[in-house]
């Protein structure tokens, strides 16, 4: 399973060293990512829903400090892993005609490896390593292939996120050291650190250390200001990675680490984070309303959905957990598709501003169809995966508290505020000279989009098949909750 992590790295280094024409680079990229994808699918097929942690690998790395290279997958991480494996080749297929920069693909491979590692690692140090390494290619891609004042944006984004990660680093070290004080030897393994006994204030501080990193990555409310600029000036590949994988990774980390390590603290703090999440949900949604730059709009819309995910997690019952992890997957699919289509659109009309567009449906019906479909899947109309997830999260919220429930249910309204206006402005109306010879989707673009669309539909119509992999893990956590409530 380490191949999942290291195949991208190896390929990237190979591409970096060997000189070759750009098309060869792309095809090698596609091949290697497809290999990763097939391995991931193999993983998915052989995944046993009821076993907790599986495909575990464990090697000692820095023995004095008990840092191990230990990876494994369970219901929580499965979704991220699958998304990471599936989306990456699709990016290349969808943008096959564009992006004739070798570095672009090399960096993407690095990112894939980093995300894969972060999603799979069970050792905090390892996790931190990948978590950070992931940033570097993103930094480079924004700086190298970005739009606008990308240099500034890249550095700002980097400082912003690294600040969070450093806080997390200190927290991790604190955990390890206090583990040593209690058990006599260092360990960074998740399973060991579970048994720590921390005082309330300690766990509070460490928790916030972790949360800082995750909150910035996701981002939840006050830490979101890097978001829109970064999305705006980042190249598509990275925007997809950020919105569909990196942010989701942050959300996933909340479950994987915070809920595992600080069960009680999470419960004590849950109300606040639910509050922040709900506020963010509405705040971002409304902020997105009169954005004129499509990328900014979608950036804010994903932020809004991610806040909903956070709410779902911190509601912390089976519906919330499952719903959120389901929303992670489905939103990853939808937003990836949307950003891909934005890139295709940009290639055709060289603009992201809504006002300059219009009438695309007339000249490019298929494009319009897919675009509208993905937009609606973000809104969460029935038969799309988003609907299932939102229903579950709302259900969880209502179970938590009826008023919270109502606020969470506003998500069915929020997304519409901007989506429909956007659809009308972009697709409908009459064509202008920008859009009048707008070429419809090409074969390879369809090849990239159709799988996404089918997956979204399948997850919307037969959710049970997908959810049964997540549910058992969620059950254990939800039952933890019962315990910690009774104690």
């Amino acid at each position: 399973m380490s191949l999942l992590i290291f195949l991208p790295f190896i390929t990237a280094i190979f591409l970096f060293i060997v000189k070759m024409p750009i098309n060869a680079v792309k095809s090698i990229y596609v091949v290697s990512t497809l290999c990763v994808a097939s391995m991931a699918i193999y993983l998915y097929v052989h995944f046993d829903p009821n076993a907790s942690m599986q495909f575990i690998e464990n090697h000692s790395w820095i023995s004095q400090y008990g840092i191990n290279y230990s990876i494994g997958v369970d219901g929580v991480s499965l979704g991220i892993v699958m998304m990471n494996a599936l989306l990456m080749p699709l990016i290349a297929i969808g943008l096959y005609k564009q992006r004739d920069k070798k570095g672009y693909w090399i960096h993407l491979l690095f990112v894939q490896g980093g995300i894969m590692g972060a999603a799979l690692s069970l050792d905090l140090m390892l996790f931190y390593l990948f978590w950070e390494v992931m940033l570097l290619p993103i930094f480079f891609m924004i700086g190298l292939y970005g739009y606008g004042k990308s240099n500034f944006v890249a550095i700002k984004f980097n400082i912003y996120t690294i600040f969070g990660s450093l806080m997390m680093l200190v927290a991790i070290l604190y955990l390890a050291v206090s583990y040593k004080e209690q058990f006599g030897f260092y360990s960074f393994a998740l399973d060991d650190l579970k048994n720590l006994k921390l005082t309330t204030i300690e766990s509070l501080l460490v928790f916030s250390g972790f949360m800082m990193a995750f909150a910035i990555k996701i981002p939840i409310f006050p830490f979101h200001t890097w978001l829109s600029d970064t999305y705006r000036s980042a190249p598509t590949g990275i925007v997809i990675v950020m919105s569909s994988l990196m942010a989701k990774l942050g959300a996933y980390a909340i479950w994987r680490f915070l809920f595992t390590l600080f069960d009680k603290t999470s419960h004590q703090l849950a109300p606040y984070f639910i509050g922040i999440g709900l506020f963010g949900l509405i705040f971002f949604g409304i902020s997105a309303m009169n954005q004129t730059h499509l990328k900014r709009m979608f950036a804010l819309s994903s932020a809004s959905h991610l806040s909903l995910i956070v709410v779902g997690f911190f509601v912390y019952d089976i519906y919330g957990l499952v719903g959120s992890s389901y929303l992670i997957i489905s939103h990853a699919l939808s937003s990836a598709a949307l950003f891909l289509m934005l890139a295709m659109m940009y290639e055709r009309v060289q603009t992201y501003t809504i006002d300059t567009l219009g009438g695309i449906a007339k000249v490019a019906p298929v494009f319009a169809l897919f675009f509208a479909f993905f937009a609606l899947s973000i809104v969460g109309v029935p038969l799309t995966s988003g609907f299932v997830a939102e229903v579950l999260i709302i259900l969880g919220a209502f179970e938590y508290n009826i008023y919270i429930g109502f606020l969470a249910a506003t998500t069915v309204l929020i997304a519409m505020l901007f989506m429909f206006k956007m659809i009308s402005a972009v697709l409908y109306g009459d064509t202008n000279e920008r859009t009048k010879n707008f070429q419809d989707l090409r074969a390879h673009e369809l090849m990239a989009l159709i799988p996404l669309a089918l997956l979204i539909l399948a997850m919307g119509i037969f959710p049970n098949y997908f959810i049964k992999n997540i549910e058992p893990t969620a059950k254990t956590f939800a039952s933890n909750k019962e315990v910690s409530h009774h104690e």
Partner: protein
Amino acid sequence: MSNEFIALAVPAILLFSAIFTLLFGFSVHYTKSRGYFITLGTLFITFLISANGIGETFTLPVLPHIFNSMVVYDAFSATFISLFLLGGFLTLAIAKSFVDNTCFFTHESFVLLLFSLFGMVILTMANELLTAFIALEIASMSVYILVGLNRNSLRASEAFFKYLLLGSFAASFYLLGMVLIYASVKSTNLAVIAHYILSTNLKAQLLVIAGSMLIMITIMFKIAAVPFGAWVLDVYEGASFPITAYMAGVFKIAIFAFILRIFLQNFIAYESLYDPLIIGGAMVTLIAGSLLAVTQNSVKKMLAASSVVHSGYLLIAFASIGEATYSATSAIIFYLFAYFLSAIGAFGVLSYISKGSDKQINYDDLNGLAKSRPIIAASFTIFILSLAGFPSTIGFIAKFYIFTSAIEAGYAILAFFGALAACVSIYYYFKVIGHLYFKESGPVESLSGEKFSLIFIVITAIVVLWGGVGTSLLYDLPGINALNDLSRYAIGSLSL
């Protein structure tokens, strides 16, 4: 071969080849490259010899009847000696192109280099205050001259002036401290002092405490801790690149070798007394260093300022020696190793770019380097990342140890502070990367690439990476674990 032999061989060889070069420099057969390779060879050989001694714990007083056990050779000194011999070797190797391109690198410079290394060797082995002082002065004075090597450059001579003046000022503190200690202990042998401290009560040690304070201040001056490190920016700026690298990387190691020995052996008892001072010093150093670093336009001065920050990190570890002796000390050793690799690499790249001119290299001079010289840019990036403590480089592991030891010692707040400083450092380090990659290059002049230096730069870069992820899993190469073991042995050899 026996350790006794090593103990004598290393300084002897250094001294011999120094004198030899000195004489050879006047002969007609002397060419710059010969002198260069003689020095390089000496360093390499001595490194091999001393590296032979590391990896096991031992202590042996060198010919006590002759030297009156003024010098001692143990795993500790062996480790450090090999460290800074390696450092000196790398510095010189990377500086090849610089040496070739500059006129003022006469044979005296090689001689001085060797002398200073000799002084450092003795300093590391010194077991007695006055010996240490002499060694320190030998080393420092050589370095003074090396700084002012370029007589025609106003900057260089001014740097020389400042360093010399302040250096001797600081040295006098050391002497005063030594006198105070001697006044109450009646000896300057470290072992005797340690015994005195353990055997008497605090009231009888007031002079010792004051003396140790003064000595510490000298050391703080040498490692450029605020407020004693005000010279560092000017001197680093004035000195030519290889010398700057040498000071930043190598000299620091020697100083720390001494400070660790004396602190661990003697003044550990006053640890609780000193901690507030050291912590305060660490914080001030971190703040001041990062404040200075963000404001610089010249990359060299930025690196100089950041070296102050790194001294701050070292002080963090230093403050936690009392509670977490082992982890803190090994953290310091590892950090020194990591830092000298990265710093030598970074300065080396700069010297490589500067082509021997002493003009300041500003951020804008780096623009578009990634296009014109991708390999240089890549390795420079690696060094910068390592300095920034970015994961998967050796610098990260080093910071990791520092923070761990700090937390272990109960100074979590210090670790937090260090993290903040690191966050700030991201700004000025990544600015470099930004300029390397994102800015469009001006007219790209193709400098005749000096393969020799290039190779060593690349090697260093690879080592830096390997130190970050290195593990004995893949091959039977020494990874991070091996380095840890080294420092363990070294500390073990000190008579604690």
